């Protein structure tokens, strides 16, 4: 019989107690692991949000945004100016176009004739001036619906029915108009985004509507484009879009140097605010509006961070509980078997053998508790993590609803012509994606996380067994043998 066999035997000496100990340990360890898993899941999500959202600035021409407003367009020279600002990692220029299905284009723009509309209904740099409308053979994937029709009625002409336009964006890198990397689900990207080429990335719903696959062709303003890839933006609105290279879009719009928007990536979260000011100053306040992309996500990030902290505290507390349980149990066990330690010592067992025996015994108990606890954790952690996150992001959800409501309310009033209709067609673009990210936070048990948590409990168990066993072994055997 070896030390190990003796320890395992001792661990099961009192079966009812062993079962109770394992059960209590399992609950504590399970809870600790679930908290650690939740912590990691939230942490990862915070990082993801920070990475995708937190360090992006959006530059729009002063007084204009999207298809709205007026002012002077941004230029490539300004993009270079921004690129030289400290802490700016990259500047991606985009050029937005409005694609109108050929037949309706003719009808809606009948008054001014021609396929290329440098100016919208208002003319000059009035509403829509920045985003020229060009014709295409594509059909929008989003039906106009009530909002779209109401929206279009604010124009100078009134049509009984109208298809919605499609957004075409010329982009200087493989990112969408909010700076997020495009999720290409089939095909490839456009390669060099700074060279004009008759290739395009098509949103999944638009591709479906028009039966486009990789290699298919379509026309924009009588020019034939080949579909290089299909992307999924995650929203209905986002998928009713086409991306082409920046120079191609500029050529289509016949405005070679103009940019609708610049997406500026800052090197780190801390530098975002100072860089924002620096970019604003470099361009001039009257020239451009610099906004931090999806600024209101900061609240989400900070509330997630508090969840992260809470779960970390809960993890430590549960782990400490597991530690205290095993500590007390081992102290109790060693006390109960003092006499046995005295016997072992009296017949010549070295202290390390005695220590080892009790350490092994405690490890057997903790191992059992951990296995059962890990099962509990893997069952519970997903629920715990999503419960924590969903309850804490209600504030964000409310903000989102309010903003969405604001838009929806504004559109019927006619105070927000054009752009409102776009938004009305689906969820509020960037927010749709972000809230999806938030709600999809689910914890998964990663092996590293489990190992860290269990190792900590094992360490406590070793100490809990070793210290009282060695303290007892140090006493003269006769005193221990005589008992209390």
């Amino acid at each position, binding site marked *: *019989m070896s030390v190990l066999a003796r320890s395992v*035997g001792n661990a099961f000496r009192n079966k009812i107690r062993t079962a109770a100990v394992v059960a209590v340990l399992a609950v504590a360890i399970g809870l600790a692991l679930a908290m650690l898993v939740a912590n990691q899941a939230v942490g990862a999500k915070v990082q993801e949000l920070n990475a995708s959202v937190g360090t992006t600035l959006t530059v729009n021409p002063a007084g204009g945004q999207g298809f709205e407003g007026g002012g002077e367009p941004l230029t490539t020279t300004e993009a270079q100016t921004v690129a030289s600002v400290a802490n700016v990692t990259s500047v991606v220029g985009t050029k937005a176009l409005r694609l109108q299905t050929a037949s309706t284009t003719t009808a809606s723009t009948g008054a001014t004739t021609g396929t290329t509309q440098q100016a919208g209904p208002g003319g000059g740099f009035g509403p829509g001036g920045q985003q020229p409308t060009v014709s295409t053979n594509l059909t929008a994937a989003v039906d106009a619906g009530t909002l779209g029709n109401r929206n279009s009625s604010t124009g100078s002409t009134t049509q009984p029915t109208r298809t919605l336009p499609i957004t075409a964006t010329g982009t200087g890198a493989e990112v969408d108009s909010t700076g997020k990397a495009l999720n290409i689900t089939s095909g490839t990207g456009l390669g060099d985004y700074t060279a004009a080429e008759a290739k395009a990335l098509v949103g999944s719903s638009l591709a479906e509507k028009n039966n486009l696959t990789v290699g298919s062709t379509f026309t924009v303003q009588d020019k034939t484009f080949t579909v290089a890839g299909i992307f999924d933006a995650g929203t209905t609105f986002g998928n009713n879009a086409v991306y082409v290279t920046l120079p191609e879009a500029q050529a289509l719009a016949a405005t070679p140097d103009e940019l609708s928007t610049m997406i500026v990536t800052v090197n780190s979260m801390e530098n975002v605010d100072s860089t924002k000011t620096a970019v604003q100053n470099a361009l001039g306040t009257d020239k451009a509006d610099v906004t931090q992309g999806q600024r209101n996500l900061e609240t989400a990030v900070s509330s997630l961070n508090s969840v992260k902290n809470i779960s970390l505290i809960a993890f430590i507390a549960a782990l400490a509980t597991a530690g205290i349980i095993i500590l007390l149990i081992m102290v109790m066990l060693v006390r109960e078997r003092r006499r046995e330690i005295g*016997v072992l010592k009296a017949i010549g*067992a*070295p*202290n390390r053998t005695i220590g080892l025996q009790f350490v092994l015994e405690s490890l057997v108990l903790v191992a059992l508790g951990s296995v059962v606890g890990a099962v509990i954790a893997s069952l519970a952690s997903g629920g715990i993590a999503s419960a924590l996150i969903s309850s804490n992001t209600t504030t964000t959800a409310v903000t989102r609803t309010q903003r969405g409501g604001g838009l929806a309310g504004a559109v019927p009033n006619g105070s927000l012509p054009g752009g409102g209709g776009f938004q009305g067609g689906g969820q509020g673009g960037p927010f749709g994606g972000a809230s999806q990210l938030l709600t999809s936070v689910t914890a998964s048990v990663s092996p590293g996380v489990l190992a860290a948590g269990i190792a900590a409990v094992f360490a406590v168990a070793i100490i809990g067994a070793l210290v009282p066993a060695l303290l007892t072994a140090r006493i003269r055997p*006769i005193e221990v*043998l005589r008992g209390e």
Partner: protein
Amino acid sequence: MIVVKDLVRQFKSGDRTIKPVNGVSFELGKGSLASIVGKSGSGKSTLLSLLGALDKPTSGDVVVDGVSLAGLPDGKLTEYRRRDIGFVFQQFNLIPNLSALDNVMLPLEFAGVRKSARLQRAKELLEQVQLDPEKHARRTNRLSGGEQQRVAIARALANEPKLILADEPTGNLDEQTGEHIIELLSSLSRDDNTTILVVTHDRSLAQKTERCFRLQQGRLTEEVRSGSRR
């Protein structure tokens, strides 16, 4: 082989101090078989535990083969108990949830004997103390007092110690089995040159030992015998 010098062990009980061992001195030669007799509570077990390094004396010293126990650190005392001493406790002190064989194998394990050799040796020893082979694998808390006593004796003999300290080794045994144990111990002292010191109330055992000491009021006196017993 063992020299005891003016050994004192005192206990405090309440406001009184009692000295069950109060200035004990004696010498035992290698291979001798000696007994200690005395009234219950006279301090025999106390003296034996001092010799076995289970307890530390208030003053005085025990020198075994020229090595003073008083000067040894804890680790060396453990080694002394493991290698040089075979101790038979008055209350046996077996590990209750281990089998008789496992109990006998414990000191062998601590001495680093290979597993197969341990089992072999333990079986031999249990046969020597006449424990039924069917009881070898039985947990010791399911054995009778006398059976436990014999397992305790077998355990004490396991590492072939040079000094065996046995506290009432025949106290729970019938006459015949007791005789056998006495025979076993005397053959060890005779053939293996093992020094043996037994505490006993058993007249027949005391008479068979070469020397006999009486512990009385903390003092040890040797009973003078007319002739050698063997």
